[in-house]
C-alpha cells in the first residue's frame, strides 16, 4: 500500500476502495479534518473587529491560514482572494474584472477543452455586455493548436482582452503550454490579460504565481486534499492596487465606511474582497492541505502523478476495447487518463467498475462542448492523487476486463 494512504481515514473506513475520482474531488488527510474540528472545538468566533480574545484567535487562524495558502501558490497574501471554489473564482474574474473593463465587441478567447466553469460565465457576460467569445481549437492529439491561437491574436489585435484557459484539462489531462501562450501574446504586443483555470493543476504540480507571470489563477481547495467550500482567485497585485479588479460581492467586512448614500471599500486589499463571514474552518483546512502537500514536496507529487499517468496509459493501451482520449504522450499529460470502452456506455463501464470497488467518473465531466465536437456521448475518467499507486491501476485494468463478461 502507498504509505500516504494511511493518512487518509476514508481508506480505513472503506478498506477495499480504489479511489480514482480525484479530479472531481480528492480525499482529505487526517490533518485537514483535525484542523477543521480543532477550529470549531477550540477557536470558533467571528473574525475581524471582535475585541474579545476568541475573536482574536479566530482572526489570527484565518490570517495565518490565508498566508500559508498564498505562499503555497507563490503569491503575495494580498493577491489571494478567497472564494468557494474555482467556479466562483472564474465568476469573480467575470464580474469583478471583465464586467468593468470590457465593452461591446471586445473578445475573450477560451479553448474548446474548457470546463463549463470557464465557458458559461463568459457566455453570460457576452449576453449582458455584448463581448464576443472565441474558442481556440485543439489538434487531434488533444493539444492546444498554437497556430490557431496566434492567428486569432493577430486577427483581433486590440479587441482581444482576455485569454482564459485551463492550466491542465480536466478531461484530456493536457497540460497547456502557458509559457508559449505568453510568448505569442508578447510577440504580437497584445495587451490582453491571461487567466488560468488551475483546478486541475494545483493538486498535481508546483504552481508559482509570480513565475507563471499570468494575471489571474483560479483554484479549488477540495481537489487538492482540502475541504469543500474554499478556493481562490489569485490576482496580480497591480490590478488590485489600480482598482481594475474590484469587489463583486458586497456587504460587511469589505467596507471602510458606509453612509446612507455611499460606501467606501476597505483600503486593505486582503479584506476588500471578503464580504460577509468567511468559512474560517475551511480556510484553516485548506492551509493544512497545503502544508501536507508541501511536506511531501510538490516536485515529488508531480513525479508520482506522472508515473501513474504513464503506467495507466501503458496498461489501458494494452486493452483492445479501450480508446484513450487526449494526449498519448505522457509528457503532455497530468492528473488523469480518460477513455472510451468501445460499444459500452461510460455509465455502464463505471457501474461495472464500482462493483469491483473502483470509483471513476463517467459522463462529460463538465466539458460538453469538447464531447460534442468529438462526437463522444460520454467518457470514463480515472484520476489520481498522492495516495494512489500502480496497484490501483492494476485493479482498474482487472475491473475493466470484467466488462466483457457482462456485455458480451
Amino acid at each position, binding site marked *: 500500500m502507498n504509505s500516504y494512504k494511511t493518512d487518509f481515514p476514508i481508506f480505513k473506513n472503506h478498506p477495499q476502495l480504489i479511489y480514482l475520482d480525484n479530479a472531481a474531488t480528492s480525499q482529505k488527510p487526517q490533518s485537514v479534518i483535525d484542523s477543521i474540528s480543532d477550529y470549531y472545538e477550540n477557536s470558533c468566533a467571528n473574525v475581524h473587529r471582535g475585541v474579545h480574545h476568541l475573536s482574536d484567535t479566530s482572526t489570527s487562524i484565518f490570517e495565518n491560514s490565508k498566508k500559508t495558502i498564498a505562499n503555497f501558490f507563490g503569491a503575495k497574501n494580498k493577491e489571494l482572494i478567497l472564494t468557494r471554489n474555482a467556479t466562483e473564482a472564474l465568476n469573480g474574474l467575470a464580474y469583478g474584472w471583465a464586467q468593468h473593463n470590457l465593452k461591446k465587441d471586445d473578445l475573450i478567447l477560451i479553448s474548446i477543452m474548457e470546463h463549463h466553469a470557464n465557458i458559461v460565465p463568459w457566455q453570460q457576460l457576452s449576453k449582458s455586455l455584448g463581448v464576443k467569445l472565441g474558442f481556440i481549437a485543439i489538434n487531434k492529439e488533444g493539444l492546444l493548436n498554437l497556430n490557431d491561437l496566434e492567428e486569432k491574436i493577430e486577427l483581433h489585435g486590440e479587441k482581444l482582452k482576455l485569454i482564459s484557459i485551463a492550466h491542465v484539462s480536466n478531461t484530456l489531462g493536457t497540460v497547456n503550454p502557458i509559457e508559449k501562450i505568453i510568448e505569442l501574446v508578447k510577440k504580437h504586443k497584445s495587451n490582453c490579460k491571461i487567466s488560468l483555470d488551475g483546478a486541475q493543476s494545483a493538486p498535481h504540480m508546483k504552481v508559482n504565481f509570480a513565475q507563471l507571470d499570468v494575471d489571474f489563477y483560479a483554484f479549488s481547495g477540495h481537489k487538492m486534499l482540502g475541504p469543500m467550500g474554499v478556493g481562490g482567485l489569485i490576482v496580480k497585485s497591480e490590478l488590485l492596487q489600480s482598482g481594475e479588479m474590484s469587489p463583486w460581492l458586497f456587504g460587511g467586512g469589505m467596507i471602510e465606511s458606509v453612509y446612507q448614500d455611499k460606501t467606501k471599500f476597505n483600503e486593505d486589499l486582503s479584506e476588500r474582497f471578503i464580504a460577509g463571514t468567511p468559512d474560517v474552518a475551511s480556510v484553516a483546512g485548506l492551509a493544512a492541505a497545503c502544508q501536507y502537500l508541501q511536506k511531501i514536496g510538490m516536485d515529488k507529487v508531480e513525479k508520482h502523478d506522472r508515473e501513474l499517468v504513464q503506467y495507466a496509459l501503458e496498461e489501458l493501451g494494452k486493452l483492445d476495447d479501450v480508446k484513450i482520449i487526449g494526449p498519448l504522450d505522457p509528457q503532455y499529460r497530468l492528473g488523469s487518463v480518460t477513455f472510451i470502452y468501445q460499444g459500452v*456506455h461510460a455509465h*455502464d463501464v463505471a*457501474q461495472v467498475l464500482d*462493483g469491483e470497488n473502483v470509483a471513476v467518473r463517467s*459522463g462529460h465531466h463538465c466539458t460538453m462542448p469538447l464531447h460534442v465536437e468529438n462526437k463522444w*456521448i*460520454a467518457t470514463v475518467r480515472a484520476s489520481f492523487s498522492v495516495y494512489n499507486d500502480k496497484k490501483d491501476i492494476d485493479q482498474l485494468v482487472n475491473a475493466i476486463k470484467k466488462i466483457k463478461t457482462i*456485455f458480451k
Partner: protein
Amino acid sequence: MSELFQEIILDEAKHPANYGTLQGTDLKQVQYNPSCGDTIQVTLKVNDEKEIVENLKWTGEGCTISMATMSLLSKEVIGKKIDDVLKIDQQVLLDLLDLETITPGRIKCMMIGLRAVQDLLANLPR
C-alpha cells in the same frame, strides 16, 4: 451491480423494441440527460379523441439503463390511456426493469425516456 446488469435489461438494451421514427406526426420530443449527454428522441401518435397513445417510436444514444427503460416503457405505453401514461412514476419503471431499487446516480438514466413521453403528452393541445 449484478442485479442492474441482469439478462433482461442487457437484452432489452441490445434489442430495443419500437426503435425508429414515426412519420406523419408532429408529436416529437428530444430529451437530454444533463449528467452525461445522453439523448432520446420520441415520436408518437394519439387517437383523434386524444385519449389513447396509438403508436410510439423512439431513437436514442445512451447507457444500458436509459435504453432498456425506454424500450420497456414504449411497450407499456402503446395502447394505453394518456391519463394513465401521465401517472407512470419511478416505481412503475423499477417494476418494468424488475429492480427493487436503483442508485441515485442512475435515476436520471432511468427517467430520461419517461420525461420525454410525459412532456409530450402533458403539453398536447387538447
